[in-house]
C-alpha cells in the first residue's frame, strides 16, 4: 500500500517539482546574460564580478553556519589560501605550464580543500563556542605565518600574476573584463548548483541533523564530528573556488585577503541575508557588496553603518532579510499586502528620523576625528552646516531622540496590525 502511495505521490508531484526547480535557474541565467548589457561601464562590471565572487563565498560559508550550525570567524583563510594557490599556478602557467586559465578556480578550490581538511581535522573535534574560538585562533595563526613566509605570500604587496599569459582557448584570453565576467558567472552557477545538490545528499541532510541535535545523530550510527569535517571541507573547497576567481579577477593576492576583515565580511553577508535559506546568503552577498562599493565612495564610515545594520539584524531579524521577506508569504498569497502599507508607512517616518540623526552624528564625528584637514564646513542631505556648531549636534541628537520615541510609540501598532492581517490571511 505504501508503494502505491509513493507512486501516486510521484506521479502527482514529480513533473511540477522538476519545473519548479528549473525556473529559478533559468531565470538566473537570463539575468546573468542581461546584466552586462545593462551595466556597460567598467565600474558596473567590476561590481558584478565582485558580487559573483561574494555569492560563491557566502553560500559556501553558509554550508557551515546555516546548514551545519558551525560558526567560523576565520573562513577567509580558505578563500585566501585557495586564491594564493591559484595565483601561484597562474605564474607557472606564465612559465609554460599547459593549463587553461579558466580552470584556475578549480585549483583554488583544491587549495581550499587541502587546508580545509587539515585545519578542519583540528577544529571540528569541538563544536559550538569552542569551535568558533578555534577558527579565530587558526586564522590568526595562518595570518601570522603568512607574514613570516615572504616568498610564498609576498608580504604586504602580495603575489601577482597575469591572467592573459595562458594558452588561448576558443579565443578566450581574459584580456577583456567581459571574459572574466562570464568566467565568474559560469563558475558561480556550477558552484551554486553543486552546493544546492550537496544539501540534498544524505550527508547534506545529516548536516541539518547535526545542526539541530548533534547528540541524537550519534544514536543513528553517525559520528557528528565526521559530518562536521565533511561540511567543513566542502565549504572550504567552494571558498577556495571563490578565492581562485578573485585571483583571476585581480591577478593579485595579498595577505589582507585571508584575514579578519574578509572573514567578518562573509559572516555579515550570510547572516544579514539570512542563514536559514539558500537564497539568503546570495541576497546578503549582493547587498553587502553593493553597499561596500557604493557607500565607500560617499563615506568612510561604511563599516560602521554595516556593523550597526548587522547588530540590528541580530536583534530584530534573526532569519535575516530573506526571513523578513518570507514572513510576508502567507499575506501576499492572500493578496492582503496593501493592508500593511499604512502601518509600514507610519513606522517609516520615525525610522527615517532616527537614521538621519545617526548618520549626521557619525558623519560629523568622522569629519572632526578622521579628516580634520577638510575643515568643519560640511554638507549632508543637501544642508550645509558647521560641524563644530552646537546647532548641528543638537539637531542630530533631537532627530535620534524623536526617532527612538516615535518607533517605540509606533511599534505596538505595527505589530498589532501585522497580527490581525496574518490572521485574516490564514482564515
Amino acid at each position, binding site marked *: 500500500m*505504501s*508503494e502505491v*502511495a*509513493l507512486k501516486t505521490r510521484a506521479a502527482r508531484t514529480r513533473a511540477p517539482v522538476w519545473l519548479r526547480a528549473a525556473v529559478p535557474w533559468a531565470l538566473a541565467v537570463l539575468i546573468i546574460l542581461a546584466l552586462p548589457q545593462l551595466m556597460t561601464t567598467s565600474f558596473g562590471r567590476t561590481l558584478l564580478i565582485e558580487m559573483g565572487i561574494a555569492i560563491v563565498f557566502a553560500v559556501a560559508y553558509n554550508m557551515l553556519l546555516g546548514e551545519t550550525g558551525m560558526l567560523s570567524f576565520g573562513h577567509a583563510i580558505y578563500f585566501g589560501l585557495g586564491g594564493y594557490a591559484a595565483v601561484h599556478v597562474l605564474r607557472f602557467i606564465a612559465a609554460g605550464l599547459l593549463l587553461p586559465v579558466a580552470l584556475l578556480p578549480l585549483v583554488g578550490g583544491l587549495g581550499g580543500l587541502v587546508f580545509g581538511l587539515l585545519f578542519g581535522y583540528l577544529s571540528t573535534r569541538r563544536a559550538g563556542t569552542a569551535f568558533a574560538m578555534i577558527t579565530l585562533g587558526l586564522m590568526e595563526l595562518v595570518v601570522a605565518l603568512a607574514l613570516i613566509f615572504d616568498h610564498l605570500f609576498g608580504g604586504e604587496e602580495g603575489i601577482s600574476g597575469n591572467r592573459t599569459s595562458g594558452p588561448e582557448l576558443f579565443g578566450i584570453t581574459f584580456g577583456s573584463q567581459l571574459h572574466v565576467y562570464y568566467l565568474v558567472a559560469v563558475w558561480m552557477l556550477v558552484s551554486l548548483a553543486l552546493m544546492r*545538490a*550537496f544539501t*540534498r*545528499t*544524505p*550527508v*547534506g*541532510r*545529516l548536516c*541539518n*541533523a547535526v*545542526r*539541530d*541535535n548533534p*547528540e*541524537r*545523530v*550519534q*544514536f*543513528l*550510527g*553517525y*559520528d557528528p564530528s*565526521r*559530518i562536521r569535517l*565533511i561540511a567543513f571541507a*566542502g565549504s572550504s573547497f567552494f571558498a577556495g573556488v571563490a578565492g581562485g576567481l578573485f585571483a583571476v579577477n585581480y591577478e593579485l593576492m595579498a595577505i589582507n585577503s585571508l584575514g579578519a576583515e574578509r572573514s567578518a565580511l562573509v559572516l555579515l553577508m550570510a547572516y544579514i541575508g539570512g542563514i536559514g535559506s539558500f537564497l539568503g546568503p546570495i541576497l546578503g552577498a549582493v547587498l553587502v557588496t553593493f553597499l561596500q562599493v557604493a557607500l565607500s565612495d560617499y563615506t568612510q564610515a561604511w563599516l560602521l553603518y554595516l556593523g550597526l545594520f548587522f547588530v540590528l539584524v541580530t536583534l530584530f531579524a534573526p532569519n535575516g532579510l530573506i526571513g523578513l521577506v518570507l514572513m510576508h508569504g502567507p499575506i501576499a498569497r492572500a493578496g492582503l499586502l496593501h493592508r500593511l502599507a499604512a502601518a509600514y508607512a507610519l513606522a517609516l517616518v520615525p525610522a527615517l528620523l532616527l537614521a538621519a540623526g545617526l548618520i549626521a552624528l557619525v558623519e560629523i564625528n568622522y569629519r572632526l576625528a578622521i579628516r580634520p584637514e577638510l575643515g568643519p564646513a560640511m554638507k549632508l542631505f543637501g544642508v550645509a552646516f558647521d560641524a563644530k556648531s552646537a546647532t548641528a549636534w543638537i539637531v542630530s541628537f533631537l532627530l535620534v531622540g524623536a526617532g527612538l520615541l516615535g518607533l517605540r510609540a509606533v511599534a505596538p501598532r505595527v505589530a498589532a496590525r501585522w497580527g490581525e492581517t496574518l490572521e485574516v490571511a490564514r482564515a
Partner: protein
Amino acid sequence: MTASALELQAVHKSFGATAIIRGVDMSVGRGERHALIGPNGAGKSTLFHLITGRFPLSSGAVRLNGEDVTGLAPFEIYRRKLARSFQITNIFPRMSVYENLRCAVLWSLGHGYSFLRLIDRMPDVNERAQAVLERIGLAARRDVPAGLLAYAEQRALEIGLAIAGEPEIILLDEPTAGMSHSETEHAVELIRRVSEGRTLLIVEHDMAVVFGLADRISVLVYGEIIASDAPEKIRANRAVQEAYLGTVPA
C-alpha cells in the same frame, strides 16, 4: 535464550562521590521483551546511557551478542544493531518529520557518509522512511517541522527514530511518559508490533503497560537489581512489593 542479546556484568557508575549504579548484573535474552522498572532515581535512565555509550562506565562490562562493547562511542554501538529512544524527546526540531526519519534509516541501509548521490534518488531510503512514517501514524504530518508536532506525536517520532534502522535490540526509555490513556494504548500497540521478532528493553512506569508487554521484568532499586524474573513471579515477590509496587498505583 541460549546466548544473551545484551549482558551487563558488574556495571558501576559514579558521578563524583555519588554511586548511581552499584554493580548491576543483567541479561536480556534474544527475542525477549524485557521491562526495567524501579522507583524514581533508581538509575534506570543512567543504565540506558551506560549501555548505549552516552556515559562511560566507572567499571564493569557491557556485551552485545557476546561482544564486549564497553567504552565504544554511541554510534559504534548503534552500528552493532542496538538503537534507543530517549525519555526526554530528542528529535531534530527544525527538520520535517520525513527528514527526521530519512536520517534515521540511512546507516542501516549501508549509505554511510554519502554525498555523491541525491537522497531523493535513493528508493530504499524513501520507501523505508515512508513505511516507518505510516507505521508510527504520522503520514499526515510528513512535512511538518518536528518541533511543531504535538507532544504525543513527538513521542511517536521518538520511537520511529529508534526503530527506523531495523535494529536487533531496541531500548525504549519511558515511551508513554506524559501520554493520555488512549495515546498510551496506541503506543503500546505500536511497540508490540515493532518489537515483533526483536529484543526489547523498556523502562516504563505504567504497570499496565509493563505487565501487558513484558516477558521478563527486572527491578532496579538504588542502583541495584533486586529481582529479575517472569511478570507473575515479580508480582508475587515480597521484596519488590515492599520496595516498589506497593507504593505505586498500578
